């Protein structure tokens, strides 16, 4: 087990700058998830840690060792691939034993470790089978087993669950989490699925265009996103946005466009004071919206037209339009509204977000 330090790492492919100076300190035993859309550089970063891609610039350390020039076999890591990459001509046992054989472990020790891993993963009955005789979930377990028998310093996961169907993915996600709690090995996990990132990670790293947007614990990212991109990426359904202009209104501030006019919450008045007359983006999560009951001040409500009501049982998702913006509100399941109906939505002022109109960085109180 070890720490991993990624320091100012760059990756160039000919004239494409895939990773643009990523720095990240991963603590011992930590489970860190890199998340972002495809092409954001997350997989490239992981492959540089694995030694499968050369590092154009910067340094990667595992423990105290700079590993830039070390071949993958000498980095003491294990990697689980998206397509499992099981050796098709070998039995499950041989698949799991291969890494130990290559490292010249004696036969008894190999058997002990493989049996132990098979036990943990519940694949003991399949050890003599070939990978093609296994289901997707079982193959995934073999790929995990192959990683854990080696007892490496760091686990690397490259979208290991994306080839599984939705139900199995949820199940394997829980198993992965349990496995990490049991083994405690430092892990770096790459995914494009923000739900996986939120549920698995001790810390989550949101990446875009080769740059880190924000690093933090899952709820920090959710509650205090650093910029509009993170705010929109984390959370499902996504945060609602409306482009507004900030204006002075007596002692307070208002944020308005041609459809809404809302008061800026008190704790944001000071930092947004510098934005008067300038564009900004108002952001509010669906669950922080509700149908106004008349008790709220009018500065905390705005009018919207219902387009679709999605009944989910535990809640209703209202797709509404307010002027140029479409929004989603998660409301109480007892609410009855019809498409085309005009409603007033109230928002929780403490949970309102504002982002700078040009830099898109969050404005904080």
């Amino acid at each position, binding site marked *: 087990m070890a720490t991993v330090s990624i320091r100012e790492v760059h990756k160039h492919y000919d004239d494409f700058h895939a990773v643009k100076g990523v720095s990240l300190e991963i603590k011992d035993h930590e489970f860190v998830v890199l998340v972002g859309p495809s092409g954001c550089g997350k997989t490239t970063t992981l492959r540089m840690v694995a030694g499968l891609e050369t590092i154009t610039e910067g340094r990667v350390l595992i423990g105290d060792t700079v590993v830039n020039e070390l071949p993958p076999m000498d980095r003491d890591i294990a990697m689980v691939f998206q*397509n499992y990459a099981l050796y098709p001509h070998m039995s499950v046992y041989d698949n799991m034993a291969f890494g130990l054989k290559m490292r010249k472990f004696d036969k008894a020790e190999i058997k002990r470790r493989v049996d132990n891993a098979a036990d943990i993963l519940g694949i003991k009955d399949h050890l003599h089978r070939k990978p093609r005789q296994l289901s997707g979930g079982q193959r995934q377990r073999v790929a995990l087993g*192959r990683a854990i028998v080696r007892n490496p310093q760091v686990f690397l996961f490259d979208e290991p669950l994306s080839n599984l169907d939705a139900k199995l993915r949820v199940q394997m996600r829980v198993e992965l989490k349990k496995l990490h709690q049991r083994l405690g090995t430092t892990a770096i996990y790459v995914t494009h699925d923000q739900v996986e990132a939120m549920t698995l990670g001790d810390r989550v790293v949101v990446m875009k265009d080769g740059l880190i947007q924000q690093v933090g614990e899952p709820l920090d990212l959710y509650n205090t996103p650093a910029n509009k991109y993170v705010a929109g990426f984390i959370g499902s359904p996504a945060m609602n946005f409306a482009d507004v202009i900030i204006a002075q209104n007596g002692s307070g501030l208002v944020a308005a466009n041609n459809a809404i006019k809302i008061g800026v919450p008190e704790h944001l008045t000071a930092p947004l004071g510098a934005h008067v007359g300038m564009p900004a983006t108002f952001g509010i999560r669906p669950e922080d919206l509700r149908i106004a009951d008349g008790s709220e001040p009018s500065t905390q409500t705005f009018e919207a037209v219902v387009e679709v009501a999605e009944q989910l049982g535990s809640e209703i998702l209202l797709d509404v339009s307010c002027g140029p913006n479409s929004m989603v509100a998660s409301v109480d399941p007892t609410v009855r509204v019809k498409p085309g109906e005009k409603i007033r939505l109230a928002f929780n002022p403490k949970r309102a977000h504002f982002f700078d109109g040009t830099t898109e960085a969050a404005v904080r109180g």
Partner: protein
Amino acid sequence: MIEGEAWRRWVYFRIPLALFLIFLLFPFYWMVITTFRPDGELYRPWRAVNYTPFWTWNPTLDHIKYLFSETMFATWMWNTMFIALASTVISLFCGVLAGYALSRLNFPFAGSLGTGIFITYLVPQTLLFIPLSEIIRNYKLGDTPWSLILTYPTFLIPFCTWLMMGYFKAVPKELEECARIDGASRWQAMLYIIIPVAVPGILSAGIFAFTLSWNEFIYALVFLSSPEQKTVPVGVVSELIRGDVFFWGPLMAGALLGSIPVAIAYSFFVEHYVSGLTGSVKG
């Protein structure tokens, strides 16, 4: 499979398939029937009342006996087998390594080198035998099996390289990456993972190479002269066609016996070879 009523299956599937099979297998059938037909029937004029071109009532082994007693057919078979096997092994060895390198190692000019190798395959043998015969003469290899074992790879290696390149490209890159993380060197990853996975591709390349060298005619005709050195295709043609006299019985017997090893090789590996050509790697 064609769905629907029975007549549709007959019209669109079974009858065309049968016609196709007859078209393909008729030469082989003709070869078989001529082999076992006595000379008296073979040279009977077509207007004769008892002329039966597609069948014989008096099968005989005379032509096969003639082949083994009056010609050096057994020696030719052995020569052909030795030459075909040796050149196949050489070509497979080179082709597998070259195919792996061209498809997996990123080195400068890999693409143009691959194209270059392919272009050498396009040079016709009927042109190439002229300079090659000069080389064979200079190295004093004429009239020995080595003249063929060393020249067949000139067209077999490009062929095997291209087939293997395609096959290696279909093997997921992650297999090798995983092996390298598991502690294998590049060489070990190739030996323990990539090559075993590529066995169907290697087998089909091998069968093709074997067939091409088994059937090769022009180099064998030019580079070999004494009867005891000849291969089956050349031996049969040069010893059983004398002037304008064709010994059809022994000729066809030679062709039939000569095609048996290739047929056996194909039937043994047919499954591997189909998956080798369709390039499927199941993970």
